[in-house]
């Protein structure tokens, strides 16, 4: 397959309603051209996972997702032998008196191999997008498993031998920096850091995702969020929270923000009671900075 040019990719992101800056387009382009995984880091809710989803949609290919968690091991990520199936097969062939080697080579064949996301991703005909989500949640041992796949595009199964990739998948790794990733893994990837968006970018994202929103309200929401992120919060809200909030407010058919509305809907944006308390304490100041005057009755 011919790999798309950079202009192409930027257009493709735009078509999928993913508002990005040039850097994101460039990273995706280089990752595809150099056939290297792209490691995307950034705070929660800035659209890291979304990149992979958009890519899969735009390239019209499968998205294979591997959600990492503590204790994730190779049987869940790479492959597993279908033990019950093998056992049944052995029982069934008990009377056939076939040679031991033959039997062995048969039960350790593709037929009894359960493919897990990583193996599945490299054995596709059309290169899929492989999303390895929240890689920093997985244990360090798991990273070592990944190295073989990421650099050589192959997986070694002791009973079967080495399986080479039929197509090289586009790999996106995401992380929240909950744990420092190993240098070996970083070396194999291209790196992209996505931060909270600037006001203009956030506004255009809101306008694209929630088209029914009042222009003034949209701008107010984004400005409020920008101010909110300045506070020292435990869980700083991301873009997804902005979109949720904008969606909620738009569906309430509001045309502007006021103190009461903000107070009653703050739970959409902040998910921690201490944060909510903190935000409520400094709400007047926040609204003043946002340019919303408190309603005078």
């Amino acid at each position: 397959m011919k790999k798309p040019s950079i202009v192409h990719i930027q257009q493709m992101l735009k078509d999928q309603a993913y508002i990005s800056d040039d850097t994101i387009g460039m990273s995706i382009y280089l990752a595809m051209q150099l056939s290297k995984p792209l490691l995307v880091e950034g705070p929660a809710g800035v659209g890291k996972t979304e990149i992979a989803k958009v890519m899969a949609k735009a390239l019209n290919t499968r998205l294979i997702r591997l959600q990492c968690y503590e204790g994730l091991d190779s049987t869940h990520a790479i492959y597993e032998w279908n033990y019950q199936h093998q056992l049944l097969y052995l029982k069934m062939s008990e009377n056939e008196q076939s040679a031991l080697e033959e039997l062995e080579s048969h039960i350790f064949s593709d037929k009894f191999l359960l493919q897990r996301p990583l193996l599945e991703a490299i054995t596709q005909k059309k290169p899929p997008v492989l999303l390895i989500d929240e890689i920093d949640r997985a244990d360090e041992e798991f990273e070592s498993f990944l190295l073989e796949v990421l650099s050589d595009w192959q997986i070694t199964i002791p009973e079967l031998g080495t399986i080479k990739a039929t197509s090289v998948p586009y790999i996106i790794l995401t992380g929240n920096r909950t744990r420092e990733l190993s240098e070996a893994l970083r070396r194999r990837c291209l790196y992209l850091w996505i931060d909270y968006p600037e006001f203009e970018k956030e506004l255009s994202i809101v306008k694209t995702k929630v088209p029914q929103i009042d222009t003034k309200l949209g701008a107010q929401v984004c400005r409020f969020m920008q101010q909110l992120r300045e506070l020292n919060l435990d869980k700083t809200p991301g873009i997804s929270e902005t979109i949720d909030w904008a969606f909620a407010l738009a569906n309430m058919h509001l045309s502007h923000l006021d103190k009461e509305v903000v107070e009653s809907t703050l739970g959409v944006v902040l998910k921690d009671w201490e944060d909510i308390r903190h935000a409520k304490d400094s709400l007047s100041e926040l609204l003043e900075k946002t340019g919303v005057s408190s309603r005078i009755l």
Partner: protein
Amino acid sequence: MAIGQLPQQTELSGNIVLLCRFLRHHGFRLGPTEASDALTALSLIPISNPRMIQQGLRVVLSRNKDQYERFVDLYNEFWERMKRDNQSKRKLNDMHESSRKKIGQEPEPSLQMLKKWLYSEGETQEEVAGYSRMEVLSKKDFNKMDEDELRLIMRLIQKMVRLLTHQQSRLRKATKLMHTLDVKRTVRLGMRRTGDIQRFIFSEPKNKRLKILLLCDVSKSMELYSRFFIYLIYAFQQSYDKITTHVFSTAMHDVSKLLANYDFGQAFELIAERIPHWSGGTRIGQCFHQFLMTNPRSMDKKTLVMILSDGWDTGEPALLKESMSIIHKSCRKVIWLNPLAGHPNYRPEVTGIQTALPYIDHMVAAHNLESLRQVLVGLRGSFRSYKAKAKIKGISSA
């Protein structure tokens, strides 16, 4: 045309290699692979657009957030310097060598102090003198801490924490290591499936992971040490997930999240900014009482309580006694790290310590690394397995 392009390309590739070298001197870990990646990337980017080149190189050459953010400045600096001197290669090299020498000559003061503290094993007198110099250092110096050095302490504390908190349970769990056969489970699995033994199951002792509750005194009397304890608690918090840190002087504050989520300089500033009682008076009893009231479930028999304080208390001894007895009853061990206890003439005569002493399992000195190692040695008798004891011995003698 091809001939005309050739020297230009070599120059570009030479420049890229130089850029890599320049970045390497600024802490980027780049090898020939990265340089060749950068060159390949350049061939894919429209060369006429300098912004795109910068973005592309940034994606290829940076490895983490810090590098990603510093890249643009370094990149611009590099090209400016390249412009400035015509004999770019030689001059750049000279520049780096001289800057390297400079770093070698005048290392950062905070770093040196920390190193000194870490490796100091000499007389206590000297160390006390070290502390007063430590105090003179401003906040800013702490921010300048070299990441590698911090990582070094981290690794050390990590080792300690692992030894402290990983305990062998009498329960066993399945393992792939073929050391001990678990007969029960092997037979049971066989019975459940076909009636004969198909697969051996091996087992090993389960690890219990203890929680740690750190209570750190930041009152006036501790001022000499508290900043310095911040290093310690920062390293603790970063190296273990089941750890909660509170600092106290006249009131208690939970700083776990601040320590866990920010880099060192930020965390330090935020803590100093958020905690109004920094370097205030000490009311240990009242603080502990308040802590127990607001966090009644913070301790259980799997919690190791570590108190970092000198024991100077201006509050009610009765309240301290009561709180300490509750803490003692509800946790696994109480370890008191006392910076004064390192002094050879030290006697626990302060009222605070006198009151608390019956409820402390281990009173240990915490004034240098050696004393911290003693924490491990002191604990090993009471709750380590035989194997782990040998390990600790290795560490403490190292």
